[in-house]
């Protein structure tokens, strides 16, 4: 067998489609077995542009004249499979005859893998989005349970180390006759009322630099100066307390259920920490909290009770009227504006 014959056999058997194109007539002079398997050889006079209707014959010829190389892709059905083939034309000369070698590489698998990657990318993107949303929900929940600074510490180190905060001010509030309210109304109604009122307290508190620490039934505790120091912690607490009462008074005018709060405020130190290893809760406790809770017990309905220490810190901005029955405690009230009398 001659070298030419071996070469031709190799060319025929190779898994790449090869054809010789007569550029004058755009006809196919030679097709190897793979090419024939893909595109057929029924008609020896078939034109290249008939075989590949999407091929731009003019552009092919122009490219052959300029650079001598032209690449494109074509898709067709082979049995059931959609085949995609990368076509490359390379200009060659044979005794002055304008000829190009067409090499067709089967890139079907690459296309299928591309589809697979697209499919996975979409899945991953959707999952990433869902994880992000869940993370935001968890973060929101945790931020309800602890201040942002504590949350950041927890996120980074997995623990929140206890810290002493001083000086801070604490407000403790509860409702007069809460147990009677409970027996008179459906649980759902009470929860909805508390939700409404506590949400308003949270908003008012945030306005004045206070943060709710916990609620337990009708007990609402807020603090100012934790975790970020606040020079005006007592004034922030007094401002919030006075506005809590004002909000309730206004709310009572238009709501069927009347709420009368009593508030205790105190200044001092507290410890802030995440307590519990399974049920995380950021808690604040210490003398200031204990005092606020104690003063609350002595407060009249719709009044704020404090001791002299707290009163001193807010003097000039709020009035402090002694309770008749207690020498140490008094009520914190707003300063009267001009023309009004403190009551």
């Amino acid at each position: 067998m001659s070298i030419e014959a071996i070469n031709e056999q190799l060319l025929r058997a190779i898994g790449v489609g090869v054809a010789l194109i007569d550029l004058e007539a755009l006809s196919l002079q030679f097709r190897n077995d793979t090419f024939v398997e893909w595109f057929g050889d029924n008609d020896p006079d078939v034109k290249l542009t008939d075989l590949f209707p999407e091929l731009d014959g003019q552009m092919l010829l122009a490219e052959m004249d300029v650079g001598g190389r032209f690449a494109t892709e074509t898709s067709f059905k082979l049995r059931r499979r959609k085949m995609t083939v990368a076509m490359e034309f390379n200009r060659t000369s044979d005794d002055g005859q304008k000829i190009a070698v067409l090499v067709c590489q089967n890139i079907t698998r690459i296309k299928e893998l591309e589809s697979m990657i697209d499919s996975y990318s979409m899945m991953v993107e959707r999952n990433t989005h869902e994880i992000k949303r869940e993370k935001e929900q968890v973060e929101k929940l945790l931020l309800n349970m602890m201040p942002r600074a504590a949350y950041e510490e927890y996120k980074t180190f997995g623990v929140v180390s206890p810290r002493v905060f001083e000086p801070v001010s604490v407000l403790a509030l509860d409702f007069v006759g809460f147990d009677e309210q409970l027996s008179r109304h459906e649980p759902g109604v009470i929860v909805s009322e508390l939700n409404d009122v506590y949400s308003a307290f949270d908003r008012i508190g945030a306005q004045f630099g206070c943060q709710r620490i916990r609620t337990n039934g009708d007990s609402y505790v807020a603090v100012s100066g934790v975790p970020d120091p606040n020079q005006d912690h007592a004034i922030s607490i007094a401002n919030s307390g006075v506005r809590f009462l004002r909000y309730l008074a206004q709310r009572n005018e238009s709501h069927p259920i009347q709420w009368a709060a009593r508030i205790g405020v105190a200044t001092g130190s507290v410890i802030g920490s995440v307590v519990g290893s399974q049920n995380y809760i950021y808690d604040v406790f210490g003398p200031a909290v204990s005092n606020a809770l104690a003063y609350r017990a002595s407060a009249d309905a719709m009044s704020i009770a404090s001791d002299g220490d707290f009163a001193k810190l807010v003097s000039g901005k709020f009035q402090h009227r002694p309770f008749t029955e207690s020498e140490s405690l008094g009520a914190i009230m707003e300063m009267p504006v001009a023309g009004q009398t403190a009551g």
Partner: protein
Amino acid sequence: MEKTLFEKYGGFSAISKIVLTFYDRMIDDELVGPFFDDVDLSRLIDHQNKFVTSLMGGPASFSDTHIERVHRNMTIEDRHLDRLKEIMAQTLSDFDVESEDIETILDGFEQRRAILVEKPNVN
């Protein structure tokens, strides 16, 4: 937490090979192949990928409503679904999936027999 089949058999990397082989065998099969004559390749791969991934507890969901909709215009008979299950079982077995896990995955196909074969929603 117990590992899903998806994790057990190597996640996307392994599942993609299973899905592509399954896809090859399905379209070359004389009985079920004709169903794929006019189906868009990328959509088919995407559907098979998501379905197999979800059956193996991976991060994909594929609702029965969606399955019903994409097969609505096909006249699928019991023997077609049986053949599909045979091809899937062989493919999984070739990729060394344990027979117990193959049963679990095939059960996912079996559970959809009613919406694929009987087509209760066709008007």
